[in-house]
């Protein structure tokens, strides 16, 4: 259906001009659509109209008193006048009202110069007001943990309260008190205990809400550089605020990028990591047992020498690289090119590809056109949302914001299926909890129930039999036996999804890291295709998608061309002007190769596998097996301790490049501040190394590499820096036009011996930490100083721990100390542990030999 042609319109006159606008427009929207400006103060496009400031009044024929344009829908034949003597007077009166209790502290206010009240006062020519300011009880500024609230500056626009509820789904703020004595108060007790996304700070039009991170710049001294947030995979646009070379804060802006001004705690308050004192700034080489500072020349020379030696003695496969998913596309492309074209080695990995190649580099081989990469605009078009093993609001929080907006504006229903009980606001239409490990049974039962009640019309399956084969062979009741879900619940959910149509199914980290992740994904792909829906897999890091796209994984070249294919090798041989071998062989395992002594030189680029990969102790031993270890990074870390050469790299704010986000959008990152110390972007380091190795690989700039990507890499054609500078561009992924397939999948329950270890452990990110950098932000460390163990009230009682205790969490592999959070978010038998803490890495609990990690919990010191 063509929306524009069928949407109803309304005709009205605005200031004498007859206009036609969509039905449902407010007067304000209709006016702005037609280039007529009406001043506003509390209005914010992304929120439902609030109507508190009463500035946007207009005259409407037939109404004695003025009408507020922001809250009033247009009706056919309406006659609107947007400026008159009375309106000017009233608008000025409103400003005088508001200014009565807003002290003119502008010279010392951090919002001065970017204050909406200041601007409106000027625009509406309010030069005096007749009222004496009544002092509130001279309240001190409220300490809201990471935020500060100054009641005296607050103008009660209510944006903060609304954004926290409508966009963030938290409802951490409300108005307390009445009338003139009203104030904004936290709903979380004495002080704020929330997501600390800072949306309230961002939408505050004045200086009433400020950050606990002291901000000493004046707005006119700041240069804002638009770039992409370097934390999770959402790819939010941020503005890095720089004063005299110092990064003073991160902001965003409604209307730029994919995030519409929304950010999470990491994006908004994680910027201290950039110019942190902890930055690693000088190249170092091991002399004897100690790492000592050196110059770039010696360091790179050293690396080149060791690589040449290894290649000469043990062949190209003796050199391997593990690349962070936070490096840029250009870095990733260059590194793999140096390995494949220069060294003829295919020993190139990301941690995600090591863990789960089928859902990373192999995603298109695995799922073809059903691959779970979906443009964000589909969120607004979905018939329903299904969060499957996905803690949507904690994992990639700004995607959750998009979901919330769709639920608010379109009433899109939400269904949740999880082994835990992650919360979401607004609430789901239906939630089911399955036993961890029975995911495929649940999906089989859903498909079976759909099939029994009649498949929906919008099914994408021409021949549904392949899609329902497994489900039919198992049967609904049989499938549910082990899943712990009632048949009634499954039938209701199947019916709900069918009725709402076109589900967008979100797969979270629980699924990505699941021992049966590929099976579950195939099963859900069947469900999606039967119901006209799509899958969206939450990626973890800012360039997880890009690293896959750039061929950082053993199975594929850039653009998902298989490394074991003659044709692909031929393609890149031609493009790169050098003979590329066909890399074939069984699925390799970098860690096993290390342990077996096959990899002599290991380069670890920008990541800390010991902290972040499963079973860190084993990883440590594996890395130690390499004769020579090179580690690049921006901070010291656990893996860096093992380095023979350590090379300092820039962070995103210090360089140019591009990331590809969760929806497959390539976006430009821009240099905002000078690199710390001698740090360099990865591409420069590797360019230098290539030169030292005598390779014919030479780029002057990062942009030049992007130019080559835009020329050679399938899907990336034309995506030069110039092309992506404004709003980025979506990658044209392979296989879009091919037919979708139905998959058979096995429904074997994943279980493990629970003796002595009563809880299944799901390990993931908190809202506050991700990867290496976040631990170097003081603010984020205040929000989350260490790992948390989320445990259900029953399990906590059984384990003898209470909320706030320090607990010892122990698996057969190891143990860590974590803060107990007793919460209904965890269901009985499943605990959740937050990772990313180098001093207590939850990943060390995961054991490689068993598919499910089980733990026991006891009180520390108890």
């Amino acid at each position, binding site marked *: 259906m063509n929306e524009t042609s069928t949407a109803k319109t309304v005709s009205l006159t605005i200031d004498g001009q007859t206009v036609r606008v969509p039905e449902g427009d407010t007067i304000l929207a209709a006016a702005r659509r037609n280039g007529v400006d009406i001043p506003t103060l509390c209005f914010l496009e992304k929120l439902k109209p609030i109507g508190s400031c009463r500035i946007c009044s207009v005259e409407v024929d037939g109404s004695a008193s003025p009408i507020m344009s922001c809250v009033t829908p247009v009706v056919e034949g309406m006659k609107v006048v947007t400026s008159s003597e009375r309106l000017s007077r009233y608008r000025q009166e*409103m400003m005088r009202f508001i200014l009565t209790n807003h002290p003119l502290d502008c010279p010392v206010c951090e919002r001065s110069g970017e204050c909406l009240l200041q601007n409106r006062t000027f625009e509406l020519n309010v030069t005096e007001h*007749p009222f004496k300011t009544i002092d509130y009880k001279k309240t001190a500024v409220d300490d809201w943990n990471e935020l500060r609230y100054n009641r005296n500056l607050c103008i009660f626009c209510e944006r903060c309260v609304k954004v926290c509820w409508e966009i963030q789904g938290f409802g951490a703020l409300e108005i307390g008190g009445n009338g003139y004595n009203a104030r904004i108060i936290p709903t979380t007790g004495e002080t704020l205990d929330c997501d600390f996304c800072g949306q309230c700070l961002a939408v505050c039009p004045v200086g009433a809400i400020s950050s606990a991170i002291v901000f000493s710049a004046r707005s006119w001294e700041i240069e804002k550089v638009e770039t992409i947030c370097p934390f999770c995979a959402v790819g939010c646009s941020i503005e890095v605020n720089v004063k005299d070379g110092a990064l003073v804060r991160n902001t965003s802006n409604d209307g730029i990028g994919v995030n519409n001004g929304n950010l999470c705690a990491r994006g908004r308050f994680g910027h201290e990591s950039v110019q942190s004192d902890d930055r690693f700034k000088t190249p170092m080489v091991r002399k004897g047992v100690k790492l000592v500072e050196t110059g770039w020349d010696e360091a790179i020379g050293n690396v080149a020498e060791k690589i040449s030696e290894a290649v000469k003695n043990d062949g190209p496969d003796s050199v391997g690289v593990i690349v962070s998913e936070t490096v840029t596309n250009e870095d990733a492309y260059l590194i793999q090119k140096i390995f494949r074209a220069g060294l003829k080695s295919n020993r190139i990995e990301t941690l995600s590809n090591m863990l789960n190649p089928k859902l990373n580099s192999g995603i298109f081989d695995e799922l073809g056109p059903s691959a779970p990469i979906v443009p964000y605009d589909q969120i607004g078009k979905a018939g329903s949302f299904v969060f499957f093993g996905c803690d949507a609001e904690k994992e990639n929080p700004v995607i959750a914001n998009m979901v919330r907006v769709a639920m608010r504006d379109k009433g899109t229903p939400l269904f949740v299926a999880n082994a835990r009980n992650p919360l979401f606001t607004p609430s789901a239409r239906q939630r089911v909890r399955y036993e961890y490990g029975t995911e495929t049974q649940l999906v089989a039962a859903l498909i079976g129930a759909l099939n029994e009640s009649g498949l929906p019309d919008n099914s994408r399956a021409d021949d549904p039999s392949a899609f329902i084969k497994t489900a039919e062979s198992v049967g609904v009741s049989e499938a549910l036996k082990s899943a712990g879900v009632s048949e009634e619940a499954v039938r209701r959910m199947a019916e709900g999804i069918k009725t709402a149509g076109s589900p967008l199914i979100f797969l979270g980290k629980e699924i990505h890291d699941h021992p049966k992740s590929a099976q579950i994904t195939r099963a859900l792909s069947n469900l999606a295709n039967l119901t006209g829906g799509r899958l969206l897999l939450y990626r973890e890091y800012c360039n997880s998608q890009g690293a896959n796209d750039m061929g950082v994984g053993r199975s594929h070249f850039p653009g998902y061309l298989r490394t074991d294919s003659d044709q692909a090798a031929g393609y890149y041989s031609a493009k790169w002007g050098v003979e590329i071998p066909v890399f074939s062989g069984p699925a390799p395992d970098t860690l096993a190769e290390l342990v077996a002594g096959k990899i002599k030189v290991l380069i670890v680029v920008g990541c800390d596998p010991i902290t972040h990969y499963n079973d860190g102790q084993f990883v440590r031993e594996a890395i130690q097996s390499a004769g020579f270890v090179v580690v690049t990074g921006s901070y010291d870390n656990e893996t860096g301790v093992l380095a023979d050469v350590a090379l300092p790299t820039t962070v995103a704010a210090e360089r140019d490049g591009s990331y590809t986000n969760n929806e497959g959008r390539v976006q430009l990152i821009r240099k905002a501040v000078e690199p710390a110390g001698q740090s360099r972007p990865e591409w420069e380091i590797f360019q230098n190394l290539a030169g030292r190795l005598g390779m014919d690989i030479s780029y002057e700039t990062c942009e030049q590499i992007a130019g080559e990507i835009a020329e050679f890499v399938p899907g990336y054609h034309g995506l030069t820096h110039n092309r992506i500078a404004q709003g980025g561009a979506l990658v044209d992924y392979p296989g879009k036009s091919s037919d979708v397939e139905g998959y058979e999948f096995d429904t074997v329950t994943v279980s493990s011996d629970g003796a002595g270890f009563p809880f299944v452990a799901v390990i993931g990110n908190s809202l506050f930490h991700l990867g290496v950098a976040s631990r170097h932000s003081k603010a984020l460390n205040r929000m989350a100083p260490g790992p948390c163990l989320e445990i259900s009230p029953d399990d906590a009682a059984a384990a003898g721990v209470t909320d706030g205790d320090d607990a010892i969490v122990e698996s057969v592999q190891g143990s860590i100390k974590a803060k107990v959070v007793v919460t209904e978010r965890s269901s009985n038998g499943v605990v959740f542990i937050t990772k990313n803490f180098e001093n207590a890495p939850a990943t060390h609990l995961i054991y490689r030999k068993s598919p499910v990690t089980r733990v026991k919990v006891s009180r520390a010191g108890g």
Partner: protein
Amino acid sequence: MSSMSPADNLALEKALAIKPEEIIDEITESGLRGLGGAGFPVGRKWRTVREARSDKKFVICNAEEGEPGTFKDRYLIENFPEMVIEGVLIAMHAVGAKQSYIYLRREYGKGYESLKKAVRGFPPGLIKKFGSPEVTLWKGPGGYICGEESALIESISGRRAEPQSRPPYPTEAGLFGHPTLINNVETLANVPLIFNMGAEKYRESFKKIFCVSGDVKKRGIYKAAPGVTLRELVFNHADGMKSAKRFKLALVGGVSGRVFSSDDLDLKLDYELFGNGAIIVLDESRSLRDTILNIAEFFAEESCGKCAPCRQGTSRFEAILKRKYKNKDGSKDMEVLKLLSTVMKDTSLCGLGRTATNVFDDIVKKFGQEVLMTS
């Protein structure tokens, strides 16, 4: 109060026997109008909710009787709770609602108990015939603003009682976003009477409840047909002024209502004039400035603070009246007060801000601003 006899459930039986549409016809025929102050035709409101398309609808009985000088709803729920509940049940049946709320003023503890008792007293068989509707007694958090219907809905939804912009009206998108009928206690208590008597007889015998208070001999509840004069209510029903002092004015409709001076004693009080039926009588010893200040203090306290004109206006109003006027005769301040009044009336979000200065305006109009000017 003879015609308001405790219900014998006859009305329920009668209403059950006819179709919902016919109930609404009957209500329309009776001429019943909203008795909470607005006077909106009840039949028309019910029909709107009946015709609204939604899988869920709600009925709310507004018993948040916050207007000073009003105590009729309290009288009704304490003495005739069955009639209120019958009204609610008939309304639910008529509009197609399965759930209803009786939103009770916090201070009405006795009323709460009597409603609870009454709800339990209904014959289960009869309730079953109504499809076992759900009636929830809901104690408001307290505050004048909770009587404003959109604020009341917010409050039941678990949010701060804050008025909302209209449209959408509660009849389209009210409680939890569903079409919602909100009627005042007195309005709903009249519904069973219509079915007991029949619409025509009811129309002829309809009596409005007036709450007469202030400087009269016998303060209390009085029933009278629309068109009754203030003179009859004050001097016949309430037995005249309390002392030898003369009548000065009455606030008809409470502190947000209109001011009647002695010139207005013979005006006929019909729907447009009687408001909610509150009549506060003041004798000649009362200071008009104190009256205005008293009311200003009330509204400054009760304003929810959401919209700028009401939040700032009510407190400004109070502050100016409380301090010494800026110039000797107060004329400068009077200009500011008048401007405040106009702006608040024209731009406030809800009725609170729009009516907070009604009494001030009327006193200035009827007694001259001079009576307020000397400080």
